């Protein structure tokens, strides 16, 4: 088992390396003068030259790459021009906000999409089935920024049910003491229910926007997988053995059907990390996406590259976790796989 885990981790390393290479390429090896980017739009030619020397941009590419990797290993992602702070630190501070949103949205999406897919598969031709299929077709057409705005318009402006989309907390509250960085968790740990409720209320709309976006692929996969499993030989055997419908559905059908859904989650994380940039913009959510966007608007490039790198690394890690979870869940996965 440990060997399997180690093998999976090893398999992720080339991807990590690829991420680093591409981010490096994005910063250095492309047309234009990277030094000018890093010096900023208002820099004089002398300042640009100085930046060039300081960042080692006048050295040969392979040497630049090694310096880049060495910097990364030390946690040096560069410095933001607009805030003057090290990019790595700013990203780390904002990462919990983005992660909390992504994880909460995933939880919400799964809790709707999986039962929906299961119901659609066990009741083919029913209204649930048609609802599921309509959702899937519509879901892949939804522009995430548009749904976010619509939700804000309907639930905040028209109905007044949701709070104003101005970030993680109502200004009245101050953040809970940091344990995990997740406001929901930390407020519960600090036993501050009012804070918890406010955090949750602020999160509802962005969470729902992101969840809507990924409902479709999860529901589609669950339905397809469930349909295939329900008509399989072993489910027929389970029925023929007179096992209770609940046992057949859950222990025999669902557990098998969820395996492909688990692999879908990797792809889903990708969509969510990508769309988090947009969702954070629409709802003024102080995550890494918003940070990168602000920097982009100010032509401050180090944060943008740090963001791309961080997202790449995060995605590789998340995929690894999904991979490991699958390896543990499916006893058939062997070392040769």
């Amino acid at each position, binding site marked *: 088992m440990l060997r399997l885990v180690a093998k999976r981790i090893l398999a992720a390393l080339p991807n990590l390396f*690829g991420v680093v290479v591409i981010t490096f390429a994005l910063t250095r090896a492309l047309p234009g003068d990277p030094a000018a980017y890093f010096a900023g739009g208002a820099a004089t030619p002398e300042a640009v030259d100085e930046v060039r020397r300081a960042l080692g941009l006048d050295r040969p590419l392979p040497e630049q790459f090694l310096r880049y990797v060495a910097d990364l290993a030390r946690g040096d992602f560069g410095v933001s021009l607009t805030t003057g702070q090290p990019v790595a630190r700013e990203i780390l501070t904002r990462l919990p906000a983005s992660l909390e949103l992504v994880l909460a949205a995933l939880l919400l999406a799964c809790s709707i999409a999986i039962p929906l897919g299961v119901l659609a598969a066990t009741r083919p031709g029913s209204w649930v089935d048609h609802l599921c299929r309509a959702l899937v077709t519509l879901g892949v057409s939804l522009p995430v920024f*548009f749904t976010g705005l619509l939700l804000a318009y309907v639930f905040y402006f028209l109905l007044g049910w949701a709070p104003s989309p101005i970030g993680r907390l109502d200004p009245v509250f101050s953040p809970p003491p940091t344990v995990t960085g997740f406001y929901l968790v930390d407020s519960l740990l600090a036993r501050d229910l009012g804070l918890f409720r406010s955090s949750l209320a602020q999160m509802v709309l962005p969470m729902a926007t992101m969840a809507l976006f990924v409902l479709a692929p999860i529901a589609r996969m669950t339905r397809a997988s469930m349909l295939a499993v329900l008509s399989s030989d072993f489910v027929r055997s389970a029925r023929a053995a007179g096992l209770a419908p609940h046992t057949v559905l859950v222990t025999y059908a669902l557990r098998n059907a969820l395996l492909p859904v688990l692999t879908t989650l990797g792809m889903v994380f990708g969509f969510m990390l990508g769309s988090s940039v947009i969702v954070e913009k629409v709802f003024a959510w102080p995550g890494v996406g918003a940070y990168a966007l602000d920097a982009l608007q100010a032509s401050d490039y180090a944060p943008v590259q740090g963001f791309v790198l961080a997202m790449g690394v995060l995605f590789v890690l998340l995929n690894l976790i999904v991979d490991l979870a699958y390896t543990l869940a499916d006893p058939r996965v062997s070392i040769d796989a």
Partner: protein
Amino acid sequence: MNLRTVRHVLADNPLSAVGAALVLLLVVVAIAGPSIAPYDPLATNAAAALQPPSAAHWFGTDSLGRDIFSRVLVATRLDLAIALSAVVVSYTVGVALGLAAGYRGGLTDRIVMRLADTIMAFPLFVLAMGIVAALGNTVANIVLATVVINLPFYIRLARAEANVRRNATYIEAARLAGNTDLRIMAVHLFPNVLPPTMVQVSLNMGWAILNAAGLSFIGLGVRPPTPEWGIMVAEGATYIISGEWWIALFPGAVLMLAVFAFNLLGDALRDIFDPRRRI
């Protein structure tokens, strides 16, 4: 594919006819564009700013008094053009690479797949952002970024198809006749791979439009005052929260409709050409 299959698919799923009709409408609007817009999409009129939909302005006016309906119409051309060029280029390059990888195997395969895997190691939208940020904020770079993040999709598709056909007898025959690899791939493999890959193009168009609009929404690529669906939604974002819903809603709705239409068309094409993949 024959007429009977087409009719069968349309009868089975009437929405696909709707999709095809919508796509046709979009293409017509894209081509006709500025000539059918009632107002000049760039003409500002401070006095008529922020007006809700009316008989004079079907979609209302924005903060600078520009007619939103005209802007949405004209934007069709830009959005479709961006998506189409991105899809065409990524199709060409991706299929070529994928065929090479699938047909030749070995080192070619490993290199191409490593490229595809590395691109896919990123959340694609983030990578697109990074590419545009690095290369410069222009429409051409939006197209380039979309091409890059779309490549793995076509590479894998073409590679899978090439793998299946690699040992087919007619390929074997062409090889024995002394044809070069390039000739075999271009003349023998590609025409057979065309139907299943073409199906994906329509599905991909919808995704490419979403992607381009998303990038414009966050301020990359298209600059004001150019009318483009994504940027128009961004312009309307601040206003929708305070009740002026029409500025963001109409471009967003049209965007959704366009993507939906291409997806419907793509589903219909898939049912006609490749019914095994139906979900």
